[in-house]
């Protein structure tokens, strides 16, 4: 195996899938911006560990960086607990401060070496094939693939071992606490996994695009399903697609791979946002129109029902009066009347609208659903 293009695609897909897994839980717990915070502040850990070991590929870097991720979460909680700062402001303050220290360390002490500011933002996935893992002289492929595969394995292990617990603290943290699971412990373990994942992905796609992979595919999947298991699977699938399509687009246009992966994630999100069968924009608009129409039909039926036995029926149920009284645009009102006649719910008797038996039945049901308390 010595095909850089293939290797980069495998790595890109691996990174994307790994990020989506923990991303699903972040997104569901309304902590999407925590991925932004962690992926930035790990830079400080990387910078400090780099100063200490003088190598950018030491395992200490991953540990140091993951630790900074946890420190970020802790500091945000601490700042929040003072009750002087809102949570979102606390996140925005802490991670930028840690990130700034990281950037200063790198630009002052490490600028001449491998670690530069562009790599921080962009990652260097294109260089991954140059760093190879060799065992007894055999070339086993790029190191990064093995590191990332390890992190993916860690994610899978964590999620499958603690699936029940994760599900519980995601959807009902209070019940979880009441049942004796320690939400804090699981919370920090999840944040630890997110941090380690962010470090691995950071190397490939840079800090800001980690956010794209952690947040965008899970939310895209969120628009397509309501099952946690399906959401994990679908967003994993999106991850693979983003890795491969993103690389292809970058190759064709000859632009940044990481940027193009994020753009691809955005494109897939946009398509889903518009076209998703239940939660897509277009189907929501169609549904809202339909609901509006059927509610209008019901309103008309109830109006007729209310005046059916009264003396002013000739006036109240007059077609002209109704068009005037309902204050809907006249063509719409006519459309609604025609629709009701077609459905056999009302009849038009010399411009007086009368309910059929079926129409009376529907109006009664409708009244009960609108005012359930008046029943009995």
């Amino acid at each position, binding site marked *: 195996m010595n095909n850089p293009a293939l290797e980069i695609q495998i790595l890109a897909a691996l990174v994307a899938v790994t990020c989506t897994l923990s991303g699903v839980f972040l*997104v569901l717990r*309304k*902590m*999407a*911006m925590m*991925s*932004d915070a962690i992926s930035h502040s790990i830079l400080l850990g990387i910078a400090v560990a780099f100063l200490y070991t003088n190598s950018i590929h030491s395992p200490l870097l991953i540990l140091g960086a993951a630790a900074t991720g946890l420190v970020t979460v802790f500091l945000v909680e601490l*700042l929040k607990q*003072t009750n*002087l*700062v*809102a949570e*979102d*402001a606390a*996140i*925005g*303050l802490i991670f*930028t*401060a840690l*990130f*700034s*220290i990281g*950037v*200063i360390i790198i*630009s*002052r002490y490490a*600028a001449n070496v491998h670690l530069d*500011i562009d790599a921080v*933002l*962009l990652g260097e996935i294109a260089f991954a094939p140059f760093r190879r893992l060799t065992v007894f002289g055999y070339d086993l492929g790029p190191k990064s693939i093995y590191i990332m595969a390890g992190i993916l394995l860690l994610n899978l292990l964590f999620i499958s071992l603690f699936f029940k617990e994760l599900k519980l603290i995601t959807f009902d943290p209070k019940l979880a606490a009441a049942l004796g699971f320690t939400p804090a412990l699981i919370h920090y373990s999840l944040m630890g996994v997110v941090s380690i994942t962010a470090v691995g992905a950071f190397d490939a796609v840079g800090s*800001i*695009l980690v*956010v*794209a992979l*952690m*947040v*965008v595919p899970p*939310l895209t999947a*969120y*628009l397509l399903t309501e099952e946690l298991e399906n959401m994990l699977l679908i967003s994993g699938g999106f991850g693979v697609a983003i890795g491969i399509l993103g690389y292809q687009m*970058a190759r064709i*246009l*000859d*632009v*940044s791979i*990481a*940027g*193009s*992966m*994020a*753009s691809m*994630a*955005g494109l897939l*999100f946009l398509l889903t*946002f518009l076209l998703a069968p239940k*939660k897509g*924009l277009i189907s*929501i608009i169609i549904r809202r129109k339909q609901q509006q129409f059927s509610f209008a039909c019901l309103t008309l039926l109830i109006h007729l029902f209310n005046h059916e036995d009264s003396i002013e029926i000739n006036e109240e149920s007059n077609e002209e009066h109704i068009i005037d009284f309902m204050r809907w645009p006249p063509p719409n009102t006519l459309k609604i009347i025609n629709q009701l006649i077609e459905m056999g719910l009302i009849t038009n008797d010399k411009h007086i609208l009368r309910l059929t038996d079926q129409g009376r039945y529907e109006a009664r049901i409708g009244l009960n659903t609108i005012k359930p308390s008046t029943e009995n």
Partner: protein
Amino acid sequence: MINFFSSLLGDHTLKTVMIGATFLGVTSGSIGTFAVLRKQSLLGDAISHSALPGIALAFLLTGSRAPIILLTGGLLVGWISALCMMVIVKYSSIKYDGALGIILSVFFGIGMVLMSFIQRLPTASQAGLNKFLFGRAATLLQEDLVVMGWFGGIALLLMLIFWKEIKLLCFNPEFGSSLGFSMLALDLLVTTLLVVAIVVGLQTVGVVLMSVMIIAPGVAARQWTNRLEIMVILAGVFGAFSGIIGAIISSEVRRMPTGPIIVLVSFLLVVLSILFAPNRGLIYNLYRKNAIHKKIREDQILIYCYHFYQEGLEGVSGEKLLNRLNFLSNRRRIKLLNRLIKDGLLSFGSKGWHLTPKGINRVLSLK
């Protein structure tokens, strides 16, 4: 010291940088106040990242590096990104934080694609645009200042004109809409002002960290006052202060990126404010809590002695008093009793400890 400052003021580049930092700090600080109050702190983060593709696009379309063109590009795309967020939240089940994450990362990704595209252009080097990532105060020129001044000035003016309405939006939008103001339009206005404030600072602080200049001055100012007017002014001052100090450090120290150091200065301001601000600050609260604890313990002892006084006893033994305080250490028990004696509330006579008339008055005043 004086020499140092006069040499600073004489330095033309530095003067430009300081004026720029002041514009940036005042605009983003005072307008950011509203984002902080409306719990939209991270909106600034998303908008500032989204301005990057706008800057790159403006350069690609016009080939010009004039600040007015680049910043207008950033302004437009930043504004579009804010609209996209509103649409996502309104038309889907995705929450606000998710919408922020999507817009921030995708727009920034597109920006990165455009930047790498520009880098390959044979005609122009990217060098001029890189400064927008982390900010480079030293590259500020006179013409940048003019653009920053105009943008910031217009935004501040709009803020003053719509002051009352914006205040309504922040504190009681329901009341505002019942008065007939369109809260959607106002929301759009405040978001637009925020976009302008962010764009003003992009060249100095950079897209990655600009959000801090929106949040930090507001959060720091919030600790010192409960009045919106004062908070906005204070945030402007804090913003300008961090901008100026950061810009000076960055231009005096070699290889010190401007954005990060400005961020650290403003973060320091936040920490100091949280610790030391009167009324809200942590240290003040700690002191107040201690004082209340002290008073409660004193009252407990005085009330205890008052019971004996009511029963007609002339004194209570020291042993009983000390037992009453057995949750305190010996040293603190003695300190407490000494304090009561010194304040003339309690005295020690031949029949033991008893209340002075002043002590009795204090117990009675508790009821």
